[in-house]
């Protein structure tokens, strides 16, 4: 009906449609272009400048920042930044894997409960993530500090030396990441489970498939779109994490986000920080691209986010 209306009207009203499009879409699009796209482009250009007084960018263009990022400094090559990058990748990988392992049974359990209770159970999983992430990390600091029951337990098991806390450490960062992102995996997995064709699972059980094989052949393929969506929601922000690694990691738990941020504060070197930001962006878009391709190949199709 709308279409016939448009085609039947004169070219003048097509112009009106275009005006309408501009009028409605421009403010929002312009806002994002002006206050996000332009700043991002500016930040990227900073990476190609040299570092002036107070670490501010200044003219001659140079690739210094990228060399510094790769570890080449005044004193030759040092592996510090490389370690930070590898640690970010490792933390992302481990925490995402742990989140998947925890989220599968949780999401499945919710679907086995009565329909009446499911919204409440989902809410229970999501509510902690509504509190500010600074507070959530602070809670873990309270729990893992030296002298707390958890730290004492770990010390008595010989996992850490006595009088040390479980934080700051890489372990605390992993824990914080898992804690932060668990709900983002439970939600998409839950909606995948809700659409699950139970007949396939029952068929597998009737044929005496053990639980592992049932999962592998009947459940996993069906929940794959949810899993991929969850991985996008977990791994990408985990790789760019700042708060958790800053509060729970300390100097030895530094991730790429902390390296980037520190270049805009105390040990300022804007171009170096900007180069780190470019690396982070590349990783983000590469991750999105790979997950999207995977989603399409494996039949997730349009269900995969973005």
């Amino acid at each position, binding site marked *: 009906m709308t279409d016939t209306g448009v085609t039947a009207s004169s070219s003048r009203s097509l112009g009106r449609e275009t005006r309408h499009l501009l009028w409605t879409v421009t403010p929002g699009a312009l806002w*994002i272009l002006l206050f996000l796209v332009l700043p991002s482009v*500016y*930040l990227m250009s900073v990476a190609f400048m040299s570092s002036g007084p107070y670490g501010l960018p200044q003219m001659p263009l140079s690739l210094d920042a990228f060399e510094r990022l790769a570890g080449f400094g005044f004193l030759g090559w040092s592996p510090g930044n490389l370690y930070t990058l590898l640690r970010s990748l490792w933390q992302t990988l481990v925490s995402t894997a742990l989140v998947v392992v925890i989220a599968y049974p949780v999401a499945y359990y919710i679907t086995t409960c009565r329909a009446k209770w499911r919204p409440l159970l989902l809410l229970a*999983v999501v509510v902690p993530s509504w509190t500010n992430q600074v507070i959530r990390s602070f809670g873990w600091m309270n729990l893992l500090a030296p002298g707390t029951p958890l730290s004492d337990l770990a010390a008595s098991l010989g996992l850490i030396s006595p009088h040390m806390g479980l934080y700051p450490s890489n372990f605390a960062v992993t824990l914080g990441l898992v804690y932060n992102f668990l709900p983002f995996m439970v939600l998409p997995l839950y909606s995948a489970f809700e659409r699950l064709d139970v007949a396939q699972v029952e068929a597998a059980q009737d044929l005496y498939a053990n639980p592992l094989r049932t999962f592998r052949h009947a459940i996993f393929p069906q929940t794959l779109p949810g899993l991929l969506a969850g991985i996008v929601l977990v791994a990408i922000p985990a790789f760019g994490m700042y708060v958790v690694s800053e509060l729970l990691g300390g100097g030895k738990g530094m991730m790429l986000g902390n390296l980037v941020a520190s270049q805009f504060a105390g040990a300022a070197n804007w171009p170096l920080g900007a180069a780190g930001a470019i690396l982070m962006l590349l990783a983000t878009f590469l991750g999105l691209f790979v997950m999207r391709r995977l989603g399409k190949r494996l039949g997730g199709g349009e269900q995969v986010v973005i």
Partner: protein
Amino acid sequence: MTKRTLHRGLAVFWWLTLAFLYLPLAVVVLFSFNSANSSARFADFSLRWYHRLMGNEEILSAFGNSLMLAVVSSLIALVVGGVLGYGMYRHRRRRLGWLILVIYLPLVLPDIVFGIAEMAFFVQINEWTGWLSPGLGTMIIAHVTFQIPFVALIVYSRFVGLDPALFEAARDLYATPRQRLVHFMLPTLKPALMAAFFLSFTLSVDDFVISFFTAGPESATLPIYIWGAIRKGVSPEINAIAALMIAAVAIAAMLSLVFSRRRSP
């Protein structure tokens, strides 16, 4: 393994996970009532940290800043994002791929890159023109930027869910654009707009990283204040203020439960 034991095992796992999710928050709340200045040992029940909060000007102003930032940015995002969502719906048959890309950018950009890009940009503009000095203004701009996509997508999906005949009806009855807005669009959009406002508000209150990098010396929000206090050395006062924020979330959760129950009986 029978079905029953499987279900029982799952239930145990579920409760363990819930304990994991709520333990850090429970500890914060518990130690906010601790009379001793320790995060390892609970001595006695006391309200001293709460009393101390009340007299702390810095915290009160941080609370004011958080509220102001969340309300103003959400209102701006509601208007700009709402109009954008409507435009996306009305012109959904055109090629708007570039627009979708622009809208998704704030969603996929890592927080830290988002915050630093804004900060670097604002500092540069401020150097050239004297405008946009860091403070509530720059924070509002940054928050609106990440709220717009959410509002636009919520409004858009609400429109998609509507019967297109409704638009025809409104036009056939010779409603003026203004009448269409007041008597048709706003009432049908009301739930979506309310959801969008609350989501924007929550996103704003929940944000730390982007606020942190765009804030000025006078515009610290509650999370920024807490962050600073943690860095300076943990004080039990933080437990008290964090406990209050957790209580606010708990109330919001209950409200959302009540509303969702009422809507879908």
